[in-house]
């Protein structure tokens, strides 16, 4: 019980609180803050209430003294979906961080990903923004680490799961889920027998943070605790660039997938063995 009271949950924090919690005390400075009201021009027209920051918080500051820009997605607003404005905020922040590096300021980036991917109400504009985010991550990660954090409870899906895959390092919790398609989409396509989206243990066993870490698709597996997440993010930032980016190992993953027998129902252990290969 005392453990529970002393624990400071990260998952329960909103996007702005998460950014504040990770940055050094007093260093938080928000860009395009909600009072500037740069909101989605598309939601109101479709009868959906907008949010003043479009569900994305961009903050500059420092982590262990290192210059950082944080992009935090608010999972409680429209499932963390990315539209034109929120997407442009993230892409712009990453592009400016790369520009910083070209001007001798070693700004790195931390992305707090709670998102179902593109906002369907904004369709192509959201897709285009996510493509911009991908390009901006690939540009920035030449200079400084781009760290993705998927804490939960929304998880990270769709085009933004590709963004997570492009990050220099990825940190997950047990609550996190990571997948190209969300469970309901897969169920709709593959059928209930193959993929029951309401079977939570089954869903987490395949797409949950622990499984993704054990399969080598995430670099850190951390408890849902502010201090521990902050410590791990700091360590990764101080580690500098990885020797090889995960997304540059496409050949390796394709070879692994080529040997998979897709006939029987896949189970978590098979996936781990498949990705880990001889290491397991």
């Amino acid at each position, binding site marked *: 019980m005392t453990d529970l009271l002393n624990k400071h949950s990260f998952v329960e924090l*909103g996007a702005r609180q998460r950014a504040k919690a990770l940055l050094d005390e007093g260093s938080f400075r928000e860009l395009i803050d*909600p*009072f500037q009201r740069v909101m989605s021009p598309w939601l*109101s027209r479709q*009868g*959906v*209430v*907008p*949010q*003043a920051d479009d*569900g994305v918080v961009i903050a500059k500051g420092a982590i262990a003294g290192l210059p950082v820009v944080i992009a935090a997605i*608010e999972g*409680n*607003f*429209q499932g963390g979906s990315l539209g034109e404005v929120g997407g442009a905020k993230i892409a712009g922040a990453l592009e400016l961080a790369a520009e910083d590096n070209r001007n001798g300021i070693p700004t790195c980036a931390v992305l707090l990903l709670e998102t179902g991917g593109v906002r369907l109400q904004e369709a192509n504009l959201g897709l285009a923004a996510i493509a911009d985010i991908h390009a901006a991550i690939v540009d920035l990660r030449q200079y400084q680490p781009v760290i993705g954090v998927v804490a939960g409870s929304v998880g990270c899906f769709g085009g933004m799961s590709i963004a997570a895959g492009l990050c220099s390092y990825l940190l997950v919790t047990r609550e996190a889920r990571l997948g190209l398609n969300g469970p309901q989409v897969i169920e709709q396509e593959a059928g209930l027998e193959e993929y029951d989206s309401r079977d939570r243990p089954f869903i987490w066993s395949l797409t949950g943070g622990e499984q993704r870490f054990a399969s080598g698709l995430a670099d850190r597996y951390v408890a849902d605790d502010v201090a521990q997440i902050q410590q791990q993010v700091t360590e990764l930032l101080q580690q500098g660039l990885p020797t090889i980016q995960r997304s540059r190992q496409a050949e390796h993953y394709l070879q692994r997938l080529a040997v998979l027998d897709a006939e029987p129902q896949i189970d978590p252990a098979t996936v781990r063995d498949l990705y880990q290969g001889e290491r397991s």
Partner: protein
Amino acid sequence: METLSFEFPAGQPAKGRALVGCVGSGDLEVLLEPGTAGTLTIQVQTSVNGAQQRWQHLFERIFQEQTPPALNIDIHDFGATPGVVRLRLEQGFEEIAHD
């Protein structure tokens, strides 16, 4: 979705500004900024139609207890109950008082 406007008598302008809440299911976002002396304006954008009277009564009840500072308040509501609205407003008033 509906957009509603309200106006109430108020005291001197508040000093700070504050943002509380989130446009999530059953919740709302409240932005409070200093207004012109004597007037409190509220703009509500809500996902629930036909609730103008409910908002009016709720605001009246809160402000009759204590004259609020002059503010421009923006509310983005995603189906919050009157209890949640009141808690968020009180949270907002407390935050501007701290700044």
